């Protein structure tokens, strides 16, 4: 038998965790609210979408870019055996990310490492900020 007692007699850690709650970075707005969790950042040329999808190959994922949105779809399958504990999510998931900027669809790149999906969405030239020179008379 393998027993996970961590919730019962790991009091010091529980206290630690209680105090950790106060120090949680407040930039993390809604962890675990939907699956998979994503981080979205942007700079002047690209939008970056990172997602935590452990245990999946990039080929098992369906990444669809439509006009105005990015869809990440997949299916996490359960293993066979006698389950003592099952906490890892199983089943079909889908996440839609709205993009309010035009994207150069041909140059989108996606890669997967250590269970982290990284998608780079380059903005089209029209969407990039331009410097307008003012001519003084």
């Amino acid at each position: 038998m393998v027993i996970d007692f961590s919730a019962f007699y790991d009091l010091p850690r529980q206290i630690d965790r209680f105090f950790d709650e106060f120090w949680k970075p407040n930039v993390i707005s809604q962890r675990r609210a939907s699956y998979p969790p994503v981080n979205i950042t942007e700079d002047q040329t690209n939008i970056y979408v990172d997602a935590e999808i452990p245990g999946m190959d990039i080929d098992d994922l369906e990444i669809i870019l439509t006009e105005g949105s990015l869809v990440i779809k997949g299916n996490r399958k359960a293993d066979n055996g006698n389950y003592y504990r099952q906490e890892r999510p199983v089943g079909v998931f889908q996440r839609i990310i709205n993009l309010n900027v035009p994207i150069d669809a041909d140059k989108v790149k996606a890669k997967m490492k250590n269970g982290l999906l990284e998608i780079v969405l380059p903005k089209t030239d029209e969407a990039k900020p331009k410097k307008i020179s003012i001519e003084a008379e």
Partner: protein
Amino acid sequence: MTQEVTKKETSTLPRFAPNTDIIERENGFYIYMDLPGVSKDNLKIDLKENELQISGKAFYPKRENVNNIHLEFGDGEYVRNFTISDIVDRQNIKATLKKGVLELFLPKAEKARPRKIEIQAE
């Protein structure tokens, strides 16, 4: 002094209990643990008597000069403890980290394996 420093380092990382599956199959127990962002070098597996502690640190690639639009996860520390019983063959525990999932295989000791008993008819 060093202890103080390490403590400071760990306390800045938010700590999470990773999602875990424990499955029993004929030859032993399998523990699957979601550890996205944890590389092999940042993973620690300790077995002390009956206590198995798994801890790992996840660091995500940092980008310079970006605006955060929406964040749902960040760097963190994963810690989880298990108690394993005597029927596990400690010498042959195997661990593999693949695609952000840690697979631990705890084989059952020879004496605890289910055995087929042959019936001899006369």
